[in-house]
């Protein structure tokens, strides 16, 4: 190819707003995850419905020690209480996540990012296409890693589910645990079926987001860690094929 000198620089692999919001979300997510684990350790039991405490039967209990002596755990020792700073940082990171998420969705809608990059093309919107994409992923087939300039249908659907299902639900179930919030929006907890149900769903949504993150990072490593991370930091990537 000739005549590239003096022409406009190539378009970035990821738009600037995608790169900025990606890393801010990463920071907020890990702060939320760490502090969320700390808060769970003060009561590693989960319930269904409105109420639950050590006098009621849990839905399940995590086999971990607790930072409170009132919780029966089967361990003879108690962990240090980390809830003060953990709760502060959890909610501060949640605000960051909320603002960054809203900015990302607004910018994504305005720029056509979702339509162009994340909604699967019409040809891929079938169970057959999805099944073959899943099979390729399971085999770690080269075609699953695909074009560094695009995503396949499975990747697109995963990102859409994370952005438009998991993150909104994890924020909602988190807010449904706040007595000051449910006083303003009683339906915020009523539709979920109770405060303890919200807490248990919050836990499972977190597990889903952690699993997504593990698969996401694994795919990045398989596809080429340096080039994919560089593309998300600087926007630079191999030329389109």
């Amino acid at each position, binding site marked *: 190819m000739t005549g590239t000198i003096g022409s406009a620089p190539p378009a970035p692999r990821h738009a600037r707003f995608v790169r900025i919001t990606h890393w801010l979300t990463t920071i907020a997510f890990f702060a939320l995850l760490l502090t969320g684990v700390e808060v769970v350790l*003060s009561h590693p039991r989960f319930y269904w419905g409105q109420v*639950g*405490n050590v006098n009621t039967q849990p839905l399940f209990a995590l086999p971990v020690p607790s930072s409170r002596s009132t919780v029966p755990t089967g361990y003879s020792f108690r962990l240090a209480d980390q809830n*003060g700073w953990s709760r*502060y940082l959890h909610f*501060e990171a949640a605000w960051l996540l909320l603002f960054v998420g809203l900015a990302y969705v607004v910018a994504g809608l305005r720029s056509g990012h979702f339509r162009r990059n994340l909604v699967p093309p019409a040809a891929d919107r079938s169970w057959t296409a999805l099944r073959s994409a899943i099979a390729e992923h399971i085999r770690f087939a080269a075609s699953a890693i695909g074009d560094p300039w695009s995503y396949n249908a499975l990747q697109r659907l995963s990102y859409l589910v994370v952005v438009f299902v998991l993150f909104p639900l994890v924020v909602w179930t988190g807010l449904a645990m706040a*007595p000051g919030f449910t*006083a303003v929006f009683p339906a915020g907890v009523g539709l979920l079926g109770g405060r303890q149900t919200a807490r248990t769903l919050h836990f499972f949504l977190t597990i889903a987001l952690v699993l997504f993150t593990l698969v996401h990072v694994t795919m990045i490593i398989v596809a080429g860690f340096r080039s994919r991370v560089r593309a998300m930091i600087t926007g630079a990537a191999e030329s389109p094929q």
Partner: protein
Amino acid sequence: MSNVSRRTLLAGGVVAGVAAAGVGLAAIGRRFGLVPPDAGGIYGPGETLSYAAHRLLGRNSLALEFPRSMISARPFANAITTPTDDFERHRAESFVNWRLVVDGHVSRPASLSLSELRAMQARSQITEVTCEEGWSYVAEWTGTPLAGILSTLGVRPTARYVVYYSSDPEWWESIDLDEAMHPQTLVTWGMNGADLPVPFGGPLRLRVPRQLGYKSVKFINRLVVTDSLDGFGNGMGQSAANDGYAWYAGI
């Protein structure tokens, strides 16, 4: 003018604008009671956003109330510190000499007995105790709305907070005047149709159902109405701040 210097100027302008907006917002926030006492420090921005959002969304919104069928059969009282000798003396005489002192920015400071409190307009409500740890239970609480007590004694216009103390010297708290005058904030002496049991805070507990359990101090014996939290203990408006806890516990 080069592109770079124009960009620098623009960036400088944006920074100055954001700073001016921040100073302006802080002044407005303080004027309308949207800034918590722990607004400083690295967690201050998040804390201020949570407190201000809840105050802007629903200053007078009511905490969830539940049907009688949802009252927990086995509520959890949580651990309490060993009661003081003074508390045990009161318990031995069934709390007949227990007093609630109300002073500070009120026109007529008072020292109220349990029977005087019970003689005032009472309210019962079925609300949930939600602990910051994650557990909860529902009970029926009966008591004298704090708003009624404060109105009877006359709140001075300078009042902004109510600080409250317990016979447990390690547990004291404060709430803003919105929360203090809220109809569900109860000086509680009854639970599930009986006297409030000691493990649940008897003889008197300030129940603040829009906030987490640690704001609902057990064994209360003094309320101070104040214009500022400076000069009260650590100046942060609560004993829980010593362990790194947030002052506003609506989230």
